[in-house]
């Protein structure tokens, strides 16, 4: 009961972080890959997802599960719609210029944060998970007294956490199929490869951009709804997912979705494991420095291919 269970527990926590991180980071990656826009307000879309989930689940007072399931649909749609409005009002008018959009999304970040502070308030608020049973997992040990089984409560995990991991996997597989097989996915990839050529073939670029921006924000919101029963909703919660998503997107190779998912698993797991055994601040320093050095010496990312 020393190293082993702690390690497994850290791995499970890490898998949870990785699942939510993968959703958020894929949202950022899609926006960057297709629109070439670095969306600094991405973390705020994440935060909005959590806050809207709280509003929905508290106003619909039938049963926690009903409210939560409703939030799972309503929050991403609302956040996606808001992102489309922001795209039409601001980003489109800047012609998606990479540097000016960064500055504009910084402005958006401040606005969203402040409006949330004024309406939602400075408190952290919990959302009740739809179901939350603890499962005790047995722990086997070959110790000095021979073979031992510790059960129940060798260590435990809640069903909700497992469900989050599975749900995230389903969404990501679905998204991947959507991008690889559907007509809209084809249009998106065409836009990513060559914007001018796509335009010449009659693809309505601006509409594609609006939808992509909405989709990216919606994915962040979805990740937030999933995590909010475990970690509470708070108006400043967007900072950390933003930074981690950046790290993941860069390590995975800018704009590459499979790379992003691989990197999310790598970062999520290592973040969980390192934070259990070392100082979390040290873990973050190592992660940020890693990103900086990856960008300096391997700008295509660890899993990306070098562009011609």
């Amino acid at each position, binding site marked *: 009961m020393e190293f082993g269970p702690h390690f497994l527990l850290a791995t499970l926590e890490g898998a949870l972080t990785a699942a939510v991180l993968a959703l958020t980071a894929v949202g950022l990656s899609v926006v960057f890959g297709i629109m070439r826009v670095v969306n600094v307000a991405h973390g705020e879309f994440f935060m909005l997802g959590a806050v809207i989930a709280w509003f929905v689940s508290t106003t619909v007072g039938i049963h926690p599960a009903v409210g939560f399931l409703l939030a799972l649909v309503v929050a991403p749609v609302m956040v996606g719609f808001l992102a489309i409005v922001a795209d039409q009002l601001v980003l489109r008018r800047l012609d998606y210029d990479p540097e000016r959009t*960064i500055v504009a999304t910084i402005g958006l970040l401040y606005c969203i944060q402040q409006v949330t502070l004024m309406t939602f308030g400075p408190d952290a608020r919990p959302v009740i998970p739809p179901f939350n049973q603890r499962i005790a997992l047995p722990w086997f040990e070959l110790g000095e007294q021979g073979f031992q089984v510790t059960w129940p409560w060798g260590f435990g995990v809640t069903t909700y956490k497992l469900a989050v991991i599975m749900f995230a996997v389903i969404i990501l597989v679905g998204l991947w199929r959507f991008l690889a097989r559907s007509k809209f996915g084809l249009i998106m990839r065409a836009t990513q490869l060559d914007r001018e050529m796509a335009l010449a073939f009659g693809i309505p670029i601006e509409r594609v951009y609006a939808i992509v921006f909405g989709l990216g924000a919606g994915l962040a919101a979805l990740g937030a709804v999933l995590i909010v029963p475990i970690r509470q909703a708070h108006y400043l919660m967007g900072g950390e997912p933003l930074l981690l998503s950046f790290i993941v997107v860069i390590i995975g190779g800018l704009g590459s979705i499979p790379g992003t998912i691989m990197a999310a698993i790598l970062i999520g797991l290592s973040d969980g494991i390192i934070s259990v055994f070392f100082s979390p601040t040290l873990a973050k320093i190592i992660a*940020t420095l890693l990103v900086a050095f990856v960008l300096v010496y391997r700008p295509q990312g660890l899993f990306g291919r070098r562009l011609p």
Partner: protein
Amino acid sequence: MRQNSNVVALHAGILASLLILFFITSAYHNGNLARIMVLAVFAMGYNFLFGYTGLLSLGHALFFSAGMYGLGISMHHLELSVLPAFAVALLFTAMVSAAIGFLALRTTGVAFMIVTLMFAQAGYLTILLFGKYTRGDEGFVIQQAERTLFGLDLTDPSIRYFAAFALFAASYLFIAWAVRTSFGRCLVAIRENEARARMLGYDTARHKFLALLASGVLSGVSGAGYALLFGYAGATFASVQYSILPLLWVLLGGSGTTLGPLIGTAFAFYLVDISSEFTSAYLLVVGAAIVFLTLFFPQGLAGEIRRRIAPWLP
């Protein structure tokens, strides 16, 4: 030649009016102006890299806090007096800038922004990690008794104003001179078209490195000056927010203009100051101002003046 004398008159006029403002404004605004002048040095340093060389960094808080802690730690823990502590701060910032320049300048564009952002974040976390010495977010106060220079008490409001003015004037004149040298002209050429500047035979890598070094050291001067004059060093000054603020000030004032950083810093300072009088939601005002300015005034206030009224504006 007429344009040249215009420029000289403008620089002299700006510095003179800052001196005059000390005598005609209230003590409250004096304090604000001292703060604005110190922070404008930060903005000018940022502008040297962003406005003139065309490199958008999101990590200048690292240089600012390097100066701040370089001075703060050497005064607070090593008990150095002001001048040696200032020298330590500058040396330390120069070392940090050189290291960042060596690494980050291998990248360009968006990658450069993110690399600088990451290094600054690593710096911020390092300050938190060594909380025993840096006191983390809480920060530490540099004792009033230690903050004396040549027998002058730097905590005295009027002496503080003139110390801030001296820092500002030195940096302002340095920038005004540097951008008119062939070195400064070459930086503008790099901003406009790096490949062409390289083809014309300029060592663009060396120019960019030196620009980043100068920009970093100026930011460090501002950080050290801030710690010295206002007696406080804290990790907040290393956070992402303080990397974004100089960008905001420069964009508001007009990037690539000598005067822009001062105008932008003063404008943003009073925007926050005035709006926080009647609403606690000043960040909303700031955020809306950023979006509005990027949409309608991409060249900033001084940039608009240059475009519409005075094309000779430096």
